[in-house]
């Protein structure tokens, strides 16, 4: 065994590719099973396969062993039913912490259980009694994983593995290549038995079967990212270089690549916004998808918005308030508390805040807020303020007001714009965003109409408006183009930070924008916080939004951003904004979404 172990190590030194012949010999396996009979048998079988076996009857011991001697095992085989810990749980932990291939073992061969194993990340699922022939091939999982790693780290440019969706949006830098590579990787990775990972794929959409801990694009991280990108020049920024510049550990090129994609989309959206009056809308647009997918119940009702999408002059009875607000001089954009409402996109909170501000006029808030907050919260939503609104549009039927606001705004365009943005956001963010459950919570709190909205907004806000990019927004907002959006973003950033302070629960996730690509994605990310990669809406963890805080933030944001945008967009642009916002949301709902540029309808 010693000799074999040495050989194995040599093989490893070669990256595991060189000594293929010897590799399976001496592979170090940890076997976990509470049944002593099975364990003994398994041990013997594995020894007969010439593996190096360590056994334990308890999951806790297994974890301890793995944690202490991380590099001393190549593979773990574990029973499903164990008294001290569920086998699936162990499976997850091992995958996350040690990133080792895990094979499940059970006497229970029901499809459901097997499925569960695979979705939790098992490389394989064996039925008891295990036969030696089956164990002879388990080494393949180790090799596969290793080569996946090698491939992931070795890739050179932008091939964020599974950003197929992004490819459509991005289109640059060999989106085609990306796709190809992705599909290739998928094929390779999923070689045999569901190398799981689908479920556990990173935010970055890392399709590999490895379970890497999700990369959380914190504000700090995003700031570094943006700084690196700016330093390289947005056109020349490639993931590898960015990664080098950033000089952060635990981030792969893949992570950077996907983040970059989102970022690019975000910038694109910004520029689109800037060109249009509906900067806000754009912002919202991006967000909307995210929000929409957030699955906020409240937002679901937002479908109403969609309705008026097509009709610019939808009737927003509710928006009256909003309009009033909007029209009020101070209101301008401010009234909407764009920053905050927009944040909803990020974290639903924004929504609530915006809503809150708007009061009855959800739409108004949303739209406005969406624009404004979005901008500020652009950090959160790369896609722009529309984010928050997006979510609204798509999902929250609860914002009937918004729909109504449309009439007030009489801006079908804006909604369409918004939608577009939302869409873009979605596109940008490959990572799958699931409807944020937390958002749901938040959404419910966000009464669409007036007062309700406020509370909802508040709840959203409390959930942690995703303002991940607070800081970042500032840098790139100011530094880069003169997009009003950027400015707004900055404002948002500012406002976000402001909001953040007031809403401790808000979690600003710089990566929010990333996530918004498809609304749902965003949602999840922000919500979870852990997923923050997406930069979606910050998880509404608390679900409680401090109305006042949010409102005040929004106001602040409005002021910050408001001017340029508001002035631009306001001139009758409110309608546009509203429309846009709604449009964005709609996109999520599957309402015909205006592809491509966000256009003010």
């Amino acid at each position, binding site marked *: 065994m010693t000799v074999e172990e040495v050989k194995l190590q040599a093989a490893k030194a070669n990256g595991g590719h060189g000594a293929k012949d010897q590799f399976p010999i001496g592979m170090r396996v940890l076997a976990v099973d509470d049944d*002593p*009979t099975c364990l*003994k*048998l398994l041990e013997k079988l594995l*020894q*007969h396969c010439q593996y190096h076996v360590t056994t334990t009857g308890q999951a806790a011991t297994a974890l301890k062993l793995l944690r202490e001697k991380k590099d001393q095992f190549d593979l773990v085989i574990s029973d499903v*039913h164990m008294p001290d810990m569920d086998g699936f749980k162990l499976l997850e932990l091992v995958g996350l912490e040690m990133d080792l291939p895990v094979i499940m073992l059970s*006497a229970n061969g029901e499809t459901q259980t097997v499925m569960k194993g695979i979705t939790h990340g098992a490389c394989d699922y064996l039925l008891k009694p295990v*036969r030696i022939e089956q164990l002879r091939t388990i080494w393949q999982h180790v090799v596969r994983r290793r080569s996946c790693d090698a491939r992931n780290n070795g890739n050179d440019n932008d091939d964020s593995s599974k950003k197929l969706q992004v490819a459509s949006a991005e289109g640059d830098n060999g989106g085609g290549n990306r796709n190809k590579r992705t599909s290739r990787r998928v094929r390779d990775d999923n070689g045999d038995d569901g190398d799981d990972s689908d479920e556990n794929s990173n935010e970055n959409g890392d399709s590999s079967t490895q379970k890497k801990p999700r990369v959380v694009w914190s504000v700090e991280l995003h700031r570094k990212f943006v700084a690196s990108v700016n330093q390289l020049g947005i056109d020349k920024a490639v993931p590898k270089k960015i990664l080098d510049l950033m000089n952060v550990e635990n981030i792969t090129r893949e992570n950077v690549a996907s983040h970059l994609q989102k970022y690019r989309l975000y910038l694109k959206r910004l520029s689109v916004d800037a060109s249009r009056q509906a900067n806000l809308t754009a912002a919202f647009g991006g967000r909307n998808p995210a929000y929409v997918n957030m699955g906020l119940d409240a937002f679901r009702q937002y479908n109403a918005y969609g309705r008026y999408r097509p009709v610019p002059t939808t009737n927003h009875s509710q928006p009256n308030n909003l309009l009033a607000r909007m029209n009020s001089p101070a209101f301008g954009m401010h009234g909407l508390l764009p920053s905050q409402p927009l944040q909803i996109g990020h974290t639903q909170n924004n929504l609530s805040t915006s809503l809150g501000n708007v009061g009855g006029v959800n739409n108004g808030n949303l739209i406005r807020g969406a624009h404004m907050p979005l901008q500020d919260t652009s950090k959160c939503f790369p896609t722009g303020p529309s984010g928050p609104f997006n979510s609204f549009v798509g999902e929250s039927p609860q914002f009937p007001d918004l729909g109504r606001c449309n009439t007030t705004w009489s801006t079908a365009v804006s909604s369409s714009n918004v939608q577009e943005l939302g869409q873009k956001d979605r596109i940008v963010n490959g990572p799958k965003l699931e409807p944020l459950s937390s958002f749901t919570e938040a959404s419910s709190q966000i009464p669409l109409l007036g007062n309700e909205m406020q509370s909802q907004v508040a709840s959203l806000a409390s959930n942690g408006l995703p303002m991940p990019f607070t800081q970042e927004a500032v840098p790139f907002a100011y530094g880069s183009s003169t997009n009003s959006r950027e400015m707004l973003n900055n404002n948002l950033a500012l406002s976000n930070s402001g909001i953040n302070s007031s809403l401790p629960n808000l979690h600003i996730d710089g990566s929010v924008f990333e996530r918004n690509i498809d609304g749902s994605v965003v949602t999840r990310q922000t919500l979870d916080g852990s997923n923050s990669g997406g930069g979606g809406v910050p998880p509404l963890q608390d679900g409680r939004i401090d109305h006042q805080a949010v409102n005040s933030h929004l106001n602040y944001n409005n002021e910050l951003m408001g001017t340029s945008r508001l002035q631009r967009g306001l001139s009758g642009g409110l309608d546009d904004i509203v429309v846009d916002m709604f449009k964005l949301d709609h996109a999520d709902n599957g309402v015909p979404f205006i592809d491509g540029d966000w256009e003010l309808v």
Partner: protein
Amino acid sequence: MRNLRLNSDSRRAARGDRAGALIRTGRILSRLGYLDEQFCQVEDLQDEASPNFAEEVATLFFKDSARLISNVEQALEKYPKDFNRWDAYMQQLKGSCSSIGASRMKSECMSFRDYCGQGNVEGCMRSFHKVKREHGALRQKLEAYFQLLRQAGPAGAATRPGM
């Protein structure tokens, strides 16, 4: 692998001597249904490092299964009609049985679980009794089997498959 290659059934059974008789005994047990192919696999794993591997596994099995059986028994008493619990305990026992190749016992375990699924208390009780009975019977037979093997002594050991 070497061991496995040596463990060919025909080779074993062909022996006309006592070892061959022992091997055939094992097969008889299989034919009677007490044990199945899995037990042969277990025996095949015997090698120089663990010459009594099958017996060790069997001993371990009986010890552990006694515990599992008593778990089921207690559950039947303490948690009337808690089919889920009963089923869970029985599942553990069934897993153990399949590892060693105790086929008759395993099928009784399975019918117990079926009754659990149906919510049939009477059926559960009946099949549980059968499980216990099969357990006892298997234990008896395997003990006799291993004793024979031991008595075969070095000669028997030498001719044992894989040895």
